Each structure stands twice: as structure tokens, then as C-alpha cells.
């Protein structure tokens, strides 16, 4: 019989890590509550809270950390989903995953900064829906070039 090698538990498995995360969200007055993680992230850690970015109104935000990639938050928001920067499952594409750490959220930044990234993304989306302008940087992800136009 082979023995499985020991693996460090994911960060949210420890109350010592999970509780301060929730406490920081409580201090930000966004009313966090733990919810069941969606099916693809079963066994993960999921929180729901409400933020009110300027000009948008209250949005219910679900932040999910899966067991497969526990350092990467998946963020789902109620409301309109048309956006140039969403993943196929509707979650927000807030940063380019291969950018340097200072241009991405990391867990050491804390949950309040994550909420800031979410609010900034929602403001940009809302503005884009109004005007067509993305108020910030974008990583190129479209392959179609002007040369591919037809006459």
C-alpha cells in the first residue's frame, strides 16, 4: 500500500486564516456571510457581501476560493453580465494572470483591497456599457486584426 505524501492544507482550511479574512470584510461594512461554494469549486471557501461602487448602486458579490487554486479568487456579481472582460463562467477578469504580482491581487493585500479591485472593475464595466470606453488598461486577448476585415 502506497502512502500519500503530506500536502499543506489550503489557507482557508484554517480558522486562523479564514476568520481574519471575514473580520476585515466585516470592518469594511459589506455584510459578509459564508455561502456554499458553487459546484465547480466544491469544498472551497465562498463569501457573499454587498458593495456600493459610486454611480452603480448596491451589488451582491460572491467571492470564491477553490481548493484547486486557493490563492486565486473567482468573483461573481449579480446584475448585467455584458462586458469585454468576463470569463466564460461570468466571473470577473480583473487582472492578467501572468502580470507581475504588483499588478494583481494577492492574498497578502487583504480582502479590502480585493473589494477595491472588484468595485473598480464594476465601475469600468458600467462605464463601458454606457460609453464603450474601458477606463483602464487591458491585456490583449483578441486575435482578430484589422487586416482580417473583408470588403
Amino acid at each position, binding site marked *: 500500500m502506497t502512502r500519500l505524501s503530506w500536502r499543506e492544507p489550503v489557507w482557508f482550511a484554517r480558522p486562523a486564516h479564514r476568520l481574519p479574512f471575514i473580520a*476585515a470584510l466585516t*470592518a*469594511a*461594512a*459589506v455584510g459578509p456571510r459564508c455561502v456554499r461554494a458553487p459546484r465547480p469549486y466544491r469544498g472551497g471557501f465562498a463569501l457573499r457581501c454587498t*458593495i*456600493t*461602487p*459610486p*454611480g*452603480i448602486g448596491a451589488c451582491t458579490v460572491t467571492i470564491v476560493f477553490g481548493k484547486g487554486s486557493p490563492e486565486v479568487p473567482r468573483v461573481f456579481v449579480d446584475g448585467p453580465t455584458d462586458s*469585454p*472582460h*468576463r*470569463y*466564460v463562467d461570468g466571473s470577473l*477578469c*480583473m*487582472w*492578467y*494572470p501572468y*502580470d507581475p504580482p*504588483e*499588478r*494583481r*491581487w494577492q492574498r497578502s*493585500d*487583504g480582502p*479590502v*483591497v480585493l*473589494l*477595491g*479591485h472588484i*468595485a*473598480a*472593475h464594476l*465601475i*469600468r464595466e*458600467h*462605464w463601458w*456599457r*454606457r*460609453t*464603450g*470606453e*474601458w*477606463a*483602464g*488598461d*487591458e*491585456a490583449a*486577448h*483578441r486575435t*482578430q*486584426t*484589422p487586416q*482580417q*476585415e*473583408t*470588403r
Partner: protein
Amino acid sequence: MGHTDDQLVAVRAQIDAHDAPLKEARFRLQLVRDIVEGFTGALRTYRSGSLAHHTMNHPVTDGDGGLVLDRRYYPGLGPEGGGEPPTEVCAQLCALLGPEVRRTYPQARCSTSKRGPKLTFGAPIEDQDPTVDMVVALTRRDGAGLWIPNLHTDRWEASDPEGHVELFNAGPASLRQTRRSVIRLAKAWNKQFTEPGMASFHLSTLALEFVEPGGSVARALHTLFERSATRLERGQATPDPAGVSAPLKLLLARATVAARLRKAADALADALAHDDDPIAVQAALHRVFWKYVEDPHNNGLAQAAALLRSRRPVSTAALGIGGPAAVVATTRAYGGR
């Protein structure tokens, strides 16, 4: 005239080029044209671009023109000659221009841009210091238009800048006036984006095609956005209005530019649908000209977008997050369905 047209007049008042720098740009272009007419083999000079099309916006940045060389004086030059690239003749022209222009503008410098010599003058007027871009063009043996240089690829390309000026200044006076107003507004709309999706010439060409006689500026601008969006959504390119050069290219992905045009078209349609309600018109026009028309509801979205557009770290408090303030770094949004 309804409220949409009224409020577009207010936008135009903000984007209109100021008289003094406009006059200065015209003077500088004429000075450079007078000098290059003495260049060996010069046939004629011409004005081109927004100065010649009467579609310059504030600030006045440049005056474009060209020098047409007689191909027979330069048998080695161009695709129909010995195939010589344009670099050398542009350098010769720059060597002539620099000292001559410095007689009038002591701080002037001559460098090169994509199409030929570029003059900077070092003499701002109202904080605007218009440059002059002089295209060195060759007559063509076969076909309409001229050969103009592309110094980035060191090749010659067929184009018809003189034909463009004729086209953009053609038609009845009322049509020309409406078309020019529409082009100025469309250029101002396009320039609001940190990365404009289209060259000004592209927008002007679309206006040439889509603006028809008899309508108001607001209706004509809506038509321009609407038909341009439809064209891009169908994957069609915009042909060169003179039919000489290749179809015009977009500066960003087609889907991005089409989405921008569609949103502008929808917002203008909203404004026109509520033309008797000034607040509704203002709210709709704010979606098109957000740098020129204030949001009448002022719910903080435009200010938040402006903050994020600056590409600087933003405080969580400014993003509506309570509790102890923290700083949110700038990121690059990614993904797309």
C-alpha cells in the same frame, strides 16, 4: 432646432479650434510650401489633412501638405522608376527646409515622420505649437493619385491626398457645413478614448459617405455612428474615398470599435427620441461626449471612471468601500467571451 442640436452646439463651442493658432498653422504651412517649391523637380505643392478639409479641432496640432515631384527629374525614384526608396530625397528636402525655416522661426527643427519632413517651430501660440508635415510625393505613370513615401517601411505607396481635399470640399454649402460639423464632433468623440479606435481620416471618410443633404447635425451624427457601426459589425472595410489606396485600417480590434460606435449611436438615438426634454438629452449626450457634457444626474460614475482612467493607484474609499482605507493598484483587465 431641438435640444440635441442645441447641446451639440455647446460641444462644438468647446472643441472649435481657436483663431490665432489656426491662423498660425496656415501661415507655417504656407511658409514651408513656398520654400519647397524651389526644390529641384518640384511640380506643385498642396494642402491636405484637417486644415485643408476645414475640420481642425482644438488644440491645433499640425498643418499637413505635400510637395509633388516630377518623376522625370528623379528617374531612379519610386516603383515606376528605378525602385529607389524615399529616404534620400526626404533627407535632401529636410536639409533645405531647416535653415530656410529658421530665418523666420529661429528655434525650428526638421525631422522626419512617416510621410516625409516634419517641422517643429518652438514658438507656441496660446500653448499650441502646430507642426508642419510635408509629404514628398511623386507623380504616377499609371493610375490616379501620387506615390507617397512610407519611411517606416522605406517604400512608396499609392494615395491621392489632392483628390481627398477635392472630395471633402465638394457638394452644396449646407452639406459641406453639416459634414464638417459632424466630422469635428466625431473626431472629438474618438479622441476621448485613451486609445482611439480610428484615425481621424477614417471618420472623415465615413462622414463623406454617410452624411446626406438636408438633415440636422444631430441626425447626421447619429447616421454616421449608426451606419459605421453596422458596417464594422458586418466585417466590412471602408474603401479609400479616392479609390487609389488600400481600404482604411482600424487602430483597434474591429469588435472594440464597432461596440464603441454602436453605443454612441444608441445614445444619440436616445437623445433624439427625447429631443424635447433637455435633461434626458443631456444624460444621453453625456454617454457620447463625457468630457464635454456633464452628467445631469451626477451620481459619481463619471468621476470614478475619470479616476480609474488616470492609471494611478486609487483609494478604496474612492471606490465606495468602507472601513480602513487601502490602496488598489492598477491592473490590466483580461479575458473575454
